[in-house]
Structures are given as structure tokens and as C-alpha cells.
């Protein structure tokens, strides 16, 4: 029966996990004061090798490993490349934090990031629920550790504790849903579950299972009404960790949500279409409204992520409600939106990391940006680009992302969702553009204004992010769209 595990398509993940374990072993014995920074460089090196392997692994057809429990196709490969690139960027940005935390040679931070990436990669190319759950747990457990990594900070501990408790509750709910699906379909592999539903139809138990699975996953991507943890966690954890949290896990969570809904549950489109549509509307509304009153940039970006998750759920809802799980447009618009959203996020956080007061304490309050344009005009321009892009004002990239999402939904006649999306995009413009107003029209405070001390890597990354967002409508936009369309086909 067992002919071969056929591991070739899983080689990047296997390499990454072996390398991470090896790094743990090596750095446990390294006696050096710069141990933490060395671990950081080693991790970035490992990630770059993984990236090369992933790109070499691009195939135009589906390939399987581990007897179909591990699936690679171009759509998944693109998401994987995106995740690894994001992780490299966020590790590059976290050098200062690692130096600060390394007071007693704690080298674990970059290595735990590596484990989180292993979890995400395995999760999004899983072919059955068991593999997926293990990937999800590996990712979540690593994220819990990262959240509490700054152990002397009370806020970090609080954020970590909230994240652990709510996260494990969500995992439990998800697992209960999966167990009901297994009980009904007598299988946990995506393919066989789909076959079982095709042959036997489904009953109310499956609907409950579907809802439980969706609740668990909605928590992981912080879609409303399961978003309560997100602001506290974003605010409590150190900035490099926030950067990582708000990018890579979101990509992984959304891709796996899409895959779980369109592969094993593809006969339940009408049921999950409604649920995802509701989640989407709730996220858009609560993300739009809750961010209005935030004075802290981290909290604002947290609610902005809830809003954007709402937008990202629209294509999935469209697929469900129009009963077309193989819609190329929806897949492309999700990948496009994800890419542009994380680029804007990386930009915002890389600049935010440079904001200090005179005592080198990190500043995240909106007020501390007042009059920034007079002191640091270049950074102010970059920030303006990010904010306009997040708002969705043409010709910046965010507009195209929103445009494709909404165009697709409109052609499927989802007028209610589109109406909510447009209204709350306008409302969100208030808090995005308020940042620009604070930077350009408020006076720079006489004493105690923000000092911008971006690291070189931070400045380069921020500039690249700004350039991508600003010039997307010229060459890169069409190129990216072409690439994505060919990948998804």
C-alpha cells in the first residue's frame, strides 16, 4: 500500500525544519556576546535558502507528498513565497529589538520565528485536517512565545496571556468542528471529505461542524466578532513582533481558510457563503468604527487589520454565494489584496519602529507624529503614501486591491456587502488621513517631539514599500496581475 512518501515537493519545509532544529542545537553551545545577532543572521540565511528552494519548486501542476497529505500548487507556492519574504523582512527589521532583548544572550527569537514559518508553510499546503491542525498549532504556539518574549514588560505578558487563552479556546472549537466532520465523512483528508459530501449530501451536524471550524479560523485571522484580542495583543507586544503578527500569519490564515472552504467543504458553498459574508460585513463595520477613536498607532493598525480582513473575506463570500469555488478572479483578487496590504503594513511598521523620544523609548502615539513633515519630509511622504494606499485612493496600490475585490462582488450581485464595504472604506479614510493631517498641519512640539531614527534596513524597506505602493499602477501592477492570473489558472 505504501509505495513512497514522495517527499520532493515538501523539500523546502523539510529543509527549514531541520535547519531550525539544527540552529537551536548549535546556538545552545555558542559562547558569544553577539549570539543573538548571529542567530538572527543565521535564520535570515536559512530563510533565503528556503526561498530559493520554494521558487525552484514552482510547478505548473499540482504535486503531492506524504500520500496526498501535503499538496503544492502554484497558488499555494505564491503564498509560501510571500510568507517567507515577509518573514525575512520582519526579521531584518527586528535587529534592534533583538540586541535590546539579548541582555542575557537570549537567541531564541529568530529561531521561534522560523518554527512559526514551518507551521504556516505546512498548514497552507496541507492535504488533510490533521496536517493542517499540526501546522496551525506549531504556528500558534510559536506566536504565543513571540508575544511574551519581552518578559519584563507587563503589557507583553498580559498580551501573551490573552493570546494563549483565547487562542487555545479557538483551537479547541476548531478541533471540535473537525471531529464532527470526521464523524460524518469518515475521513479527514480534504479530497475524501469532499467525496463523502458529494455522495451522501450533508445534514445539520455538518453545518454545526462548519460553523465551529469557521469560528476557530476566524479567530486566527482576527475577523470580527472574534477580534477582541487583536488590539491588546498588537499594543502589548514589541513592534517587530507586531510587524510579524500583522503580516505572515494573516496570509497563512486566509489562504488556509480559502482552501478549507473550497476543497473539503466545496459542496456546502451556500452555507459557508452566508457565514463568511456575515463575518466580512461585521469585520468591515467593527474595524471601521473601532479604529476611529484610537490614539495609539498600534491599536489603530490592529483595527485597520480587522477592516482589511473584512475586505479579504469578500472574495471568499463571493465564491460561496455565487457557487463558484474555482473562480480565478476571486483567487487573484485575494492574492493581490493580501500582497498589497502586507506591503503597506510592513511600511507603516518599519517607519513606526524608528520613532523614538529623546530617551530612545519607542513612541507609538499618534500625537508624537505632529509636525513630522517639517523635520523629516521624506518619511512624511512615505507615510502619506502608505495611508493613502490603505484608504484606497487612486493611483495608489490599495485602490486596485479594493477595486478588484469589489468588482468581483458586484458582478456576483452582492450589493449589500459592497455597500457596507464602500461606506466603511470612506469612514476608514477619516483615521488614515488624520495621520497625514497630524504630520503636515499640526505644529512640531517645542520639546519632546519624535526623533526618527530608522535603521538602514528599515529605511530601505520603507522606501521599497512606498515605491511599490506609489508606482504600482505603472509597470508592476500589470506584471503582478499577469503573474497571479497565470499562477491561479
Amino acid at each position, binding site marked *: 500500500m505504501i509505495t513512497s512518501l514522495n517527499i520532493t515537493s515538501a523539500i523546502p519545509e523539510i529543509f527549514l525544519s531541520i535547519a531550525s*532544529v539544527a540552529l537551536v542545537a548549535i546556538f545552545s553551545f555558542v559562547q558569544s556576546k553577539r549570539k543573538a545577532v548571529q542567530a538572527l543572521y543565521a535564520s535570515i540565511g536559512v530563510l533565503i535558502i528556503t526561498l530559493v528552494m520554494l521558487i525552484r519548486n514552482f510547478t505548473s501542476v499540482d504535486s503531492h507528498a506524504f500520500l496526498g497529505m501535503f499538496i503544492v500548487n502554484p497558488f499555494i507556492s505564491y503564498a509560501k513565497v510571500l510568507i517567507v519574504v515577509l518573514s525575512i523582512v520582519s526579521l531584518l527589521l527586528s535587529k534592534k529589538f533583538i540586541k535590546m532583548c539579548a541582555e542575557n544572550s537570549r537567541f531564541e527569537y529568530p529561531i521561534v520565528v522560523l518554527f512559526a514559518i514551518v507551521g504556516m508553510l505546512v498548514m497552507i499546503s496541507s492535504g488533510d485536517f490533521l496536517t493542517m491542525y499540526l501546522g496551525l498549532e506549531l504556528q500558534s504556539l510559536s506566536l504565543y512565545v513571540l508575544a511574551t518574549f519581552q518578559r519584563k514588560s507587563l503589557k507583553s505578558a498580559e498580551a501573551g496571556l490573552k493570546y494563549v487563552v483565547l487562542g487555545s479556546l479557538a483551537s479547541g472549537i476548531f478541533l471540535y468542528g473537525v471531529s464532527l466532520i470526521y464523524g460524518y465523512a469518515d475521513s479527514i483528508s480534504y479530497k475524501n471529505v469532499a*467525496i463523502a459530501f458529494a455522495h*451522501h449530501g450533508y445534514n445539520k451536524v455538518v453545518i454545526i461542524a462548519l460553523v465551529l471550524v469557521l469560528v476557530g479560523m476566524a479567530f486566527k485571522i482576527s475577523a470580527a466578532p472574534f477580534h477582541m484580542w487583536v488590539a491588546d495583543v498588537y499594543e502589548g507586544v514589541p513592534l517587530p513582533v507586531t510587524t510579524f503578527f500583522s503580516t505572515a500569519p494573516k496570509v497563512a490564515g486566509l489562504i488556509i481558510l480559502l482552501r478549507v472552504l473550497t476543497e473539503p467543504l466545496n459542496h456546502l458553498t451556500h452555507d459557508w457563503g452566508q457565514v463568511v459574508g456575515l463575518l466580512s460585513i461585521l469585520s468591515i463595520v467593527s474595524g471601521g468604527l473601532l479604529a476611529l477613536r484610537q490614539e495609539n498607532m498600534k491599536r489603530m493598525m490592529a483595527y485597520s487589520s480587522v477592516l482589511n480582513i473584512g475586505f479579504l473575506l469578500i472574495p471568499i463570500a463571493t465564491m460561496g454565494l455565487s457557487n463558484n469555488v474555482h473562480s480565478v478572479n476571486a483567487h487573484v483578487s485575494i492574492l493581490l489584496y493580501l500582497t498589497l496590504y502586507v506591503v503597506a503594513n510592513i511600511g507603516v511598521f518599519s517607519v513606526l519602529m524608528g520613532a523614538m523620544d529623546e530617551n530612545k523609548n519607542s513612541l507609538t502615539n499618534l500625537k508624537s507624529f505632529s509636525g513630522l513633515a517639517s523635520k523629516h519630509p521624506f518619511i512624511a511622504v512615505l507615510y502619506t503614501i502608505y495611508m493613502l494606499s490603505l484608504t484606497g485612493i487612486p493611483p495608489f496600490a490599495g485602490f486596485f486591491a479594493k477595486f478588484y475585490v469589489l468588482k468581483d462582488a458586484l458582478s456576483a450581485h452582492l450589493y449589500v456587502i459592497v455597500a457596507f464595504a464602500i461606506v466603511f472604506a470612506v469612514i476608514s479614510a477619516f483615521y488614515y488621513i488624520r495621520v497625514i493631517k497630524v504630520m503636515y498641519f499640526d505644529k512640531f512640539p517645542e520639546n519632546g517631539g519624535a526623533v526618527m531614527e530608522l535603521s538602514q534596513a528599515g529605511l530601505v524597506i520603507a522606501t521599497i514599500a512606498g515605491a511599490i505602493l506609489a508606482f504600482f499602477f505603472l509597470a508592476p501592477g500589470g506584471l503582478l496581475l499577469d503573474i497571479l492570473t497565470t499562477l491561479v489558472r
Partner: protein
Amino acid sequence: MENYMWLNALVFYVFAFVLIISALFVVFSKNPVHSVLFLILTFFNASALFILEGAEFIGFTLLVVYAGAVAIMFLFVVMFIDIDTHTIKGGLIKALPVALILGLIFLAELIVAFVSWKIPLTHVNSDLNLAFHATQVSNITDLGLVIYTRFFHIFQMGGLVLLVGMLGAISLTLRDKREDFKTQDISQQLERTYVNTLRIVQSEPQKNDNEKKDSENEKSTETDTANSNSNSNSNSNKDSDSSSDIEKTGEK
């Protein structure tokens, strides 16, 4: 065989009943220590249910890992940490109405759903249930057959999850710059000879009356210096003790 069906059912219901009752006591008992003890009882009953269903490996794992290790750790934590149970219970009472309503709604949904469940007992796709179909061999044999072959990557992923758990726990709790660590450097201990540890201290003869006191003073200062040495070259405490002993004999 059929005559024993009722016995099987009886055993099942007894364990299930005790399981539910003790689970309720975990939540509602006033003393947290009692809660943990009831938790252990819950684990025991759950493992009995597993064994009853023929999944003896999971049953025994539950006993060994959860009842044997996790719950005992819980007990330690609960006993060591001073918890104000009143505030916790206050929160419970406050949240109880909402929780009760939500729980009842969910229960009603589950009942409605399960009543209408007609299982398509056809096993169209048996990829996982091969372990449960082969009744000839024991559960553990079945697991052994698939866990390192078919589910190899899952086994490895489980290992990674545990490794991250360990890594996280260590990096969050280990403080390796503590000054009062007593570590033992064995090679240094073995290298010690009496030549470089024995020191002759000249004591003055006229202080005969206070000799005892003085020597004791000297001893304490000696241990002090030895201690400060031990910080730099990590001698153990034993060393300094023995050195002062030698010194005492030398004096005599």
C-alpha cells in the same frame, strides 16, 4: 457475548456519569485544590471510556500524561500560588447568566442536529479508519504500523510542536545571569591539590584565650573570600568549606 452487552453498557454509563459529575465539580468546587483533584478524577474516567472503546493506547496515554504529569503540575501550581478564590468566583457568577444562555442555545443546536443524524455507514473512503477496522491486532500494533510510515510527517510535526513548547518555556523563564547560581565545575574540583589550597596561617600565641573565637572569625572571612572566588571561577561551596577545614587542622 450478547449476554454481556448490558454489562458493557452499565460500565459505560457509570464511567460517563462520574466523568460528567466530576467535570462539573472541577468548575464549581470552592477550593482550587479540590478542582484539580476532580480534574484528575475526570481524566481517570475519560481514560476508562477510551479503554472501553478499544482505544487503549490513548486511554493509557491520558492516564500517564494528563493524570500523571499535567494534573500533578497543576496541583503544585495551585498550591504554591496564593489565589484569591473569591474574586474568581465573583467573575463566574457575573458571567453565569450569559454563559448559561449561550451554552443552552448551543446544547439545543447540538441536540437538534444529532437527533436528525443518519450516519451513512458505508465507509466510502477508509484512509484513517484502517486502524479501527483491523480488529485482529491490538490498537498499539496498529498505531505502530502507521505512525512511522504513513503518518511520518505528522509524527515529526508533533515533535516540532513539543520542541517549540520547550524552547518557549525555557526562554521565558531561564535567567542565566543570576549571581547566586551554584554551579559545579568538575574539572576544577579534580585539579585541586592540597598544595594550592592549604594555607598556613600564623596565629599569635598570646591570644590563647580568644583562640577559638579568632579562628572562627578567620574561618568566616576565609569562606567569604572563597565565596567571592567561586563567583568568578565557579567553585562550589563545598570547596570553600573543605579548605577552611584544612586550615583549622593546620592551625592546630
